[in-house]
């Protein structure tokens, strides 16, 4: 594509040069966080987590399109989403180290399952696909209360095989709910390629079957993802119902730290995938759009590294959850003595 085209793409969406720089920074930060967590895992300091390497554009670009009041129903791989949403790197690391000051789960969940009422991030699901049900319920609540809010639901290609996916898509379409179904098709569900998940060429073909709009995007292109998400949100706000967005991307690492993709992937294929790098993609775009100079890159890298270093030290120095609180929050309120009410 020519530089003219590149420029018109972000400007046509109303994005300024600063927005592009911000998107770039968030993607760099996401990758720096991801790399550090992976290394900390190898050092035995952070237990199992799922990397989002290769999916930064799909995550940051879509989350960047959201309004502050919108809700997010997420899965376990969405580090870039929560960064774009404004979660601090300190909070991310306090969580990964399961510390008492983690505002997400305070030692109660596996790393990466973010949940923040403050940021309107619903509780991340680990049973695959279940967040789809919660997300349509959240959208229902917005409509019920007459609020101009949408819910974006993040899920993978594998999740589209679940009953919850079907039920949620149908439910949202039938009730015309303000939902963006954002599928990050990273081609794999652990070791199972997406050719064993579905028999259509693109998952967006299914959208018509639910009576909703389907949009296929290059998930390596942050601007395109942003644009498609924003268009889907506009439909949601104006009562036109849900949209299915399929962002094709690559999973550049094993499924999680506990997986080893050498058991099921040829190295040449992995190498070939590395060429599909959303960050390199954005860099090329910025160069063509005259938004790039070495200073930008260096500054972003240094700032991200400093944030991650600070967060690592912060988490390491933070206290573990208090054993005395192991049994708190099982029920919302602690019943003292039922019989007092009775007599």
């Amino acid at each position, binding site marked *: 594509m020519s530089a003219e085209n590149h420029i018109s793409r972000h400007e046509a969406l109303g994005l300024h040069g600063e927005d592009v720089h911000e998107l770039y920074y968030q993607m760099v930060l996401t990758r720096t966080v991801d790399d550090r967590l992976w290394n900390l895992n190898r050092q035995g300091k952070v237990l199992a987590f799922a990397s989002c390497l290769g999916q930064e554009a799909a995550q940051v670009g879509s989350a960047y399109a959201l309004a502050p009041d919108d*809700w997010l*129903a997420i899965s376990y791989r969405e580090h870039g989403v929560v960064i774009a949403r404004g979660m601090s790197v300190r909070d991310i690391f306090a969580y990964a180290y399961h510390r008492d000051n*983690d*505002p*997400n*789960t*305070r030692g*109660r*969940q596996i790393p990466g*399952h973010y*949940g*923040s*009422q403050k940021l309107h991030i*619903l*509780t991340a*699901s680990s*049973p695959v696909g*279940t967040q*789809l*049900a*919660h*997300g*349509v*319920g*959240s*959208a*229902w*609540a*917005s409509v*019920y*209360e007459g609020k101009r809010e949408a*819910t974006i639901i993040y899920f993978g290609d594998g999740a589209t095989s679940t*009953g*919850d996916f*079907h*039920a*949620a898509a*149908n*439910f949202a379409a*039938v*009730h015309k709910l303000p939902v963006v179904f954002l599928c990050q098709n990273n081609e794999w569900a652990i070791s199972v390629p997406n050719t064993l998940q579905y028999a259509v060429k693109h998952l967006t073909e299914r959208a018509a079957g639910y009576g909703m709009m389907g949009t296929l995007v290059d998930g390596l292109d942050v601007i395109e993802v942003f644009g498609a998400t924003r268009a889907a949100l506009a439909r949601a706000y104006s009562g036109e119902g849900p949209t299915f967005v399929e962002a094709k991307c690559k999973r550049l690492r094993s499924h999680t730290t506990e997986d080893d993709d050498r058991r099921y992937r040829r190295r040449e294929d992995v190498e070939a995938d590395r060429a599909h790098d959303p960050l390199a993609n954005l860099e090329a775009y910025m160069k063509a759009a005259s938004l790039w100079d070495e200073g930008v890159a260096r500054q972003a890298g240094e700032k991200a590294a400093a944030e991650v270093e600070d967060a690592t030290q912060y988490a390491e120095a933070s206290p573990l959850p208090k054993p005395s609180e192991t049994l*708190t*929050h*099982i*029920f*919302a*309120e602690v*019943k003292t003595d*039922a*019989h007092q*009410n*009775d007599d």
Partner: protein
Amino acid sequence: MTLITYRDAVRDALREEMHRDPRVFIMGEEVGVWGGSYAVTQNMLREFGDKRVRDTPIAEGIIVGAGIGAAMGGLRPVCELMTVNFGLLASDMLINHAAKLHYMFAGQVKVPLVVRAVGGSGRQLAATHSQSLEVLFAYIPGLKVVMPATPYDAKGLLKAAIRDDDPVLYIEHSLLYPIKGEVPTGDYLVPIGASDIKREGKDVTIIAWSRMVHVALQAAEILGREGISAEVVDLRTLRPLDMEPVIRSFMKTNHAIVVEEDWRTFGIGAEVAVQIYEQAFGYLDAPIVRCAGAEVPMPYAKNLEALAVPTAGDVVRAAKELIG
């Protein structure tokens, strides 16, 4: 006080709570025009409109799952499952999500969700429509399980469930819908997690919940005529399980029978019995007896179905052997 049916008690609780709190709404299969598979939500569509009484596609997982999302979003959904047997299709949502989100996210979110379902046998609906599955759900920390036996409790407990900030599985018994009982005219609540003495006695403690409370009461009546005084404790809530009235009663009678429609092995009676052993071993005059459902997928034929569920006769026989 007015005399109303159990079905009306459930409906009145729903209606009153919906009038009281605009965040309360109903969703489920057949709840709208049809009025619910057991006619509980009859006429409610007309009264509240389709925003608040919402028919959903047939997908139990999404009914409860969307209910969870809506509850986290600040609403107070009452989801109806046609029967608790279909609740198995929503068990992931109940067990892996509703019960755990408040804990896993360190108190950040609340899930004030009520899931209503019909349980139990007695209508010749055979093995997949007649189960007493309460133990599966009562086993789960974080989930409240309520099973009222009378119109009074049905209304007061449902209102309490709707106002509760935790997920509550509220299981109705299909054979109880026509029974009548007194309920106060005004607003009242029955606390979740409080067992109740339904009949006082001194020789034997009979513990039951849901329809088996009526079997226990019938047995107590017969035993009374034969000179055995039975105390009947209705658990009303299975989690949190309130054993205090049971233990207090047992310390007086020194004999206990649990009457349960669910299966004996690994059933709720086993838990109740072991808690009595743990908390009142010194008061034990004889082993605790369980009158429980036969360990069989529920047969269809009327005579066979009747054999699979405890009767007042079974309880009377057990009590006589026990007191001897």
